[in-house]
């Protein structure tokens, strides 16, 4: 049984201008100790997916369909109290703006201890000791738990956020653009740290990013999202070397590659779909250079190419043959 299984997830937002289909039929799997990269342009539904899994959707949002199975249990069917008991212990999220997520007038160690005390029946002293252990786990000196956030650099704050996410030994950690606001060298440090931790703690890691190029080094699997759907999923090798969806292909080409020629790629013309009223058929067809008549009215199913490799494109064979 996989650790996490998301099946045909639909998450909609009720707004004054109608129903916004942020996630509209996304699915993927995650195993213990495995790292999955969730990648796509802004507005493709990556973060909404994460918030649905952690049950942290704002009140306008609701899961309109699908299943989220965590060790076989559908968490969508659980009550709020049952969820509260599970959150942090089962799933925790590291958000993008680490700098803004910490309370500026509280010692960092206390903030971590607070999370522990809230979820487990331990005394504050014990929780603080664990906060110190967590600091060491994320490669920071134990004595820094008494510091305030302003005494930390951006990279250290992000490490503290990771420590906090690990406070209750979660089985799944979701990093929502955890390195986007950081410098390149610090980004590399944090990614190394996350990779080390997931191996040591055997936890599932979901890394959400718009930067496809960092996934090859940190993840085992990649799910490419477009218009609220997972359009292609597979191992890192599948995605990069046996690409089977035109969107994935174009997205990869958008990143500079020093082993390829020094040519600025064309990019992807057009804009992502309006999810108030997504296009009929395949949602990528208005921007797809391979689109044919069938793409305009028929939504492609996810086709199995190999054990872990799926693509939702009518013409995935042509894409794979480089046509």
């Amino acid at each position: 049984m996989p650790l996490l299984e998301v099946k045909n997830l639909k998450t909609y937002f009720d707004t004054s201008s109608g129903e916004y289909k942020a996630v509209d039929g996304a699915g993927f799997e995650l195993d213990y100790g495995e790292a999955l990269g969730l990648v796509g342009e802004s507005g493709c539904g990556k973060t909404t997916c994460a918030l649905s899994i952690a049950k942290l959707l704002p009140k306008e949002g609701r899961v309109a369909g699908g299943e989220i199975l965590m060790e076989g249990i559908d968490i969508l069917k659980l009550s709020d109290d049952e969820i509260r008991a599970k959150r942090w212990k089962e799933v925790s999220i590291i958000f993008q703006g680490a700098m803004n997520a910490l309370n500026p007038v509280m010692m960092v160690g206390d903030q971590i201890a607070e999370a522990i005390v809230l979820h487990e029946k331990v005394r504050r002293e014990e929780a603080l000791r664990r906060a110190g252990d967590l600091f060491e786990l994320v490669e920071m000196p134990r004595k820094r738990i008494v510091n305030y956030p302003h005494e930390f650099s951006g990279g250290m704050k992000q490490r503290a956020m990771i420590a906090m996410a690990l406070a209750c030994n979660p089985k799944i950690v979701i990093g929502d653009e955890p390195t986007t606001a950081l410098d390149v060298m610090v980004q590399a440090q944090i990614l190394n740290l996350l990779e080390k931790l997931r191996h040591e703690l055997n936890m599932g890691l979901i890394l959400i990013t718009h930067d496809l190029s960092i996934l090859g080094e940190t993840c085992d699997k990649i799910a490419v999202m477009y218009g609220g759907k997972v359009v292609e999923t597979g191992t890192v090798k599948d995605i990069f070397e046996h690409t089977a969806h035109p969107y994935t292909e174009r997205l990869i080409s958008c990143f500079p590659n020093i082993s390829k020629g020094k040519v600025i790629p064309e990019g992807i013309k057009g804009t992502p779909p309006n999810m108030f009223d997504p296009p009929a058929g395949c949602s990528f067809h208005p921007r797809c250079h391979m689109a044919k008549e069938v793409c305009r009215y028929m939504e492609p199913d996810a086709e199995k190419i190999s054990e872990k490799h799926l693509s939702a494109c009518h013409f995935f064979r042509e894409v794979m043959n480089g046509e």
Partner: protein
Amino acid sequence: MGNRIIAEVKDLKVHFEIKKSLSKDLFGSSKRNLKAVDGVSFQIKEGEILSLVGESGCGKTTTGKAVLGLVKPTEGKVFFSGEEIKSLDKGSMKQFRQKAQMIFQDPYQSINPREIIMDIVAEPLEVNRLVKSEEERTERVREALEQAGLVPAEDFFFRYPHELSGGQRQRVVIASAIIMKPDFIVADEPVSMLDASIRTEILNLMMDLRKHNRLAYLFITHDLSLAWLVSDRIAIMYLGRIMEIGGADEIIQRGLHPYTKALTSIMPVPGVRRKAGRKVLPGETPNPMDEIRGCKFSGRCPMAEPLCREQDPELAEISLGHCVACHFVQK
């Protein structure tokens, strides 16, 4: 690329004085200087693209601003088309302001949300009193928008920024820079707020403009692979200094400075993992307010020896056009 040097800085230093708090004033702690830029020299030729690459706080933006005369150098000289900008008279200064433009990072913040696109793009013309009639104004705006790839231009005239996507907004920013027909643009992280798919469109636009208008760019970025993709030459900055400067391919493939090597080793490549050879430096960039003896990079350098902590290496030419500031490379 021409041979005419369009912009040049010589031993540029920009130091900011840090205001003391009252308590520090009372207890008499000494005045502190933040050496944002501390001895930088380079030239940019007509139609050339030079990238300044470095982490936050390395002084790349401050250098860019100093080149445009937007911050005053503490020491050193800035030249534009052979003339020192400090000594320009009022008329030449006005000319300079038109010929050298800047593009900022965030198109959500750098344009006025309460003006229509027409007024945003026409503003530089009006400030400089360059148009005489309404027709001329409209014509110039149309031309700039079309060059920036916003076609048909009429569709954009009366729209507000919030009606545009991020990529379109950045095109508006570019249109209002090129409406002055500049020779030189400082582009400060012009695409780092944009999605990868839109990023390449904006880069292609910038390259087209250089081809057609012989524009030179100072391209400021933290992304080394992006710098490699667009520029002729790359300068690697660290704590207010240039550590290495040379041809873009040279720097990426045969970079010599330990800092350059570390940066190139962690450059993300879209593809299957490539773990070996990654040199992730421990620690973070030191506070630029702290005095560092010797080489500025010595605190994080894997090769540092006692000499590095005492003597600051000069930026010396290793081969034609390729300069490195490191004791060990020069040996």
